[in-house]
């Protein structure tokens, strides 16, 4: 460093002595994208699993009409889109954060000038991009293979609702990621997310589920997440405002749990 920068820097000089945040964020997003893309645990699971499941549980019903006169193929496509976005969030953050903790990547990152907010923002942006891609792949597959045609405006509406409503699932993912170890995390996310998805009617119509599940379902975050998406194709069973209220409540609860788990971990590692 030049002798000029020795001594106490003036406030104006201090301001330019950090890297510009947009550049940091952009580079962080690019790296996170590469990391996720190169890990089949994330990329293959996030993009292909919804397609596989939809082939079994969705495609056979393409062309049928529901009791309310809706295209069942479109309704199920919406259900599996909700499943896909939720999976990107819960698995991505749940397993991703647990792995980073296990490999102590968080320790080195914490010692760099990278602001934690930028680190977090990059993760959320990349998850959103993956979710968008997952929905795109699913809709394309449904259109090409199943002949399920959806107007672009509907696609945009469903996708926007799913991304905006995913905050509680991001919270759930983070909470699991900070509590579970790297080996336990994959099991925990499956044990938590799959029953939630099933009970909320993402894999089969809610009416076909056991009675006790139907009684519990309206209290689950994924149930209202599904309702939010279904209402975009006329299949919702509750007003959008009700879905949003439930999701906001769950977002607050799960983000609080995530922050608590994070603080406990930070106190142990960096206190």
């Amino acid at each position, binding site marked *: 460093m030049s002798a000029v920068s020795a001594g106490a820097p003036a406030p104006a000089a201090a301001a330019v002595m950090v890297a510009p945040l947009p550049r*940091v964020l952009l580079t962080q997003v690019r790296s996170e994208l*590469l990391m996720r893309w190169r890990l089949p645990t994330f990329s293959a699971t996030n993009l292909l699993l919804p397609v596989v499941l939809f082939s079994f549980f969705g495609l056979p019903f393409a062309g049928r009409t529901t009791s309310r006169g809706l295209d069942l193929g479109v309704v199920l496509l919406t259900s599996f889109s909700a499943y896909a976005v939720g999976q990107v969030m819960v698995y991505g953050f749940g397993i991703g954060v647990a792995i980073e903790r296990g490999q*102590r990547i968080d320790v080195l990152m914490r*010692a760099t000038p990278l602001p934690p907010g930028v680190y977090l923002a990059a993760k959320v942006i990349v998850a959103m991009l993956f979710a968008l891609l997952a929905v795109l792949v699913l809709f394309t597959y449904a259109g090409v293979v199943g002949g399920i045609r959806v107007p672009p405006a509907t696609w945009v509406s469903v996708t926007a609702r799913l991304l905006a409503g995913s905050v509680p699932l991001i919270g759930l993912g983070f909470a699991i990621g900070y509590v579970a170890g790297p080996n336990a995390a994959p099991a925990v996310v499956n044990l938590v997310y799959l029953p939630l998805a099933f009970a909320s009617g993402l894999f089969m119509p809610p009416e076909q589920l056991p009675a006790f599940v139907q009684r519990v379902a309206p209290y689950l975050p994924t149930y209202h997440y599904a309702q939010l998406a279904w209402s975009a194709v006329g299949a919702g069973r509750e007003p959008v405002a009700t879905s949003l209220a439930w999701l906001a409540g769950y977002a607050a609860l799960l983000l609080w749990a995530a922050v608590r788990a994070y603080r406990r971990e930070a106190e142990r590692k960096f206190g």
Partner: protein
Amino acid sequence: MSTPLVELEGVRKRYGAVEALRGVDLRIGRGEVVAMLGPNGAGKTTSISVMLGLRRPTSGRARLFGLDPGDRRARSRTGVMLQESGVPGTLTVRELIDLFRAYYPRPLPAGRAIALAGLEDKAGARVAQLSGGQRQRLYFALAICGDPEVLFLDEPTVGMDVEARQAFLVSMRELAAAERTIVLTTHYLEEADALARRIVVVDHGVVIADAPPADIKARMPSKRMRFRLSGAGAAALEGLPVTAVERTGDRVRLLSAEPETVLRELFRRGVALSDLEVAGADLEDAFLALTARASEPS
């Protein structure tokens, strides 16, 4: 000393029942190359963690560039190589170095950081495929890629082979010549001596010596002697040129820089000794000598 870049003021750090630091005061100025030397568990890593803001002192204060160590402006002038920290294995060496460069306002060119760490052949390799020694070089590249004014290196040469160690030594000299401030930890006296111009000896959470390498070495015993005394009194061992004496029954353990003189003197006094053993003193012995714990009855 000019304005200290790194400052610890009466720092204590307690982990549950264990007090890792028991009042450490340290000021490190621009351009200093300081080695923190001590056995495992002495408090070296904790000291560095507090300097970096990775650990909060239980009491006392840490400053980095006169700022809170966690301040982004301080971190932007700091490079770090930590023990037991990881990096994402799916990125290539160059991608990871480029990522870290983006965190700093005026980073080194990527090629320069890669060359300084001796990773030219591995720039395109995924991090997960690196050997332990190569990984250590990568951590060094990540520490210097932001062209930091202060470099913290916690046990930098662990896992390096002889060749890597030599290359590391050369890079360190270049950095020191460029007026960079370097704080490193090691438990090898030779390494501290080769790299640093100031050695801070830490043991049991306190600084027990802080001096140039030559002074520290002069205070370190070079040899450890063991023997049995038959029938001699305590007076037989008085006034010898030793740094520590330990006597258990007829067994005697001495630390001395001049074992020949000690033996000559013992024979002159007519002391009968048996089972004589003379060996090079290790760091444990050196700490015994420096803390003079050995001379206290145990």
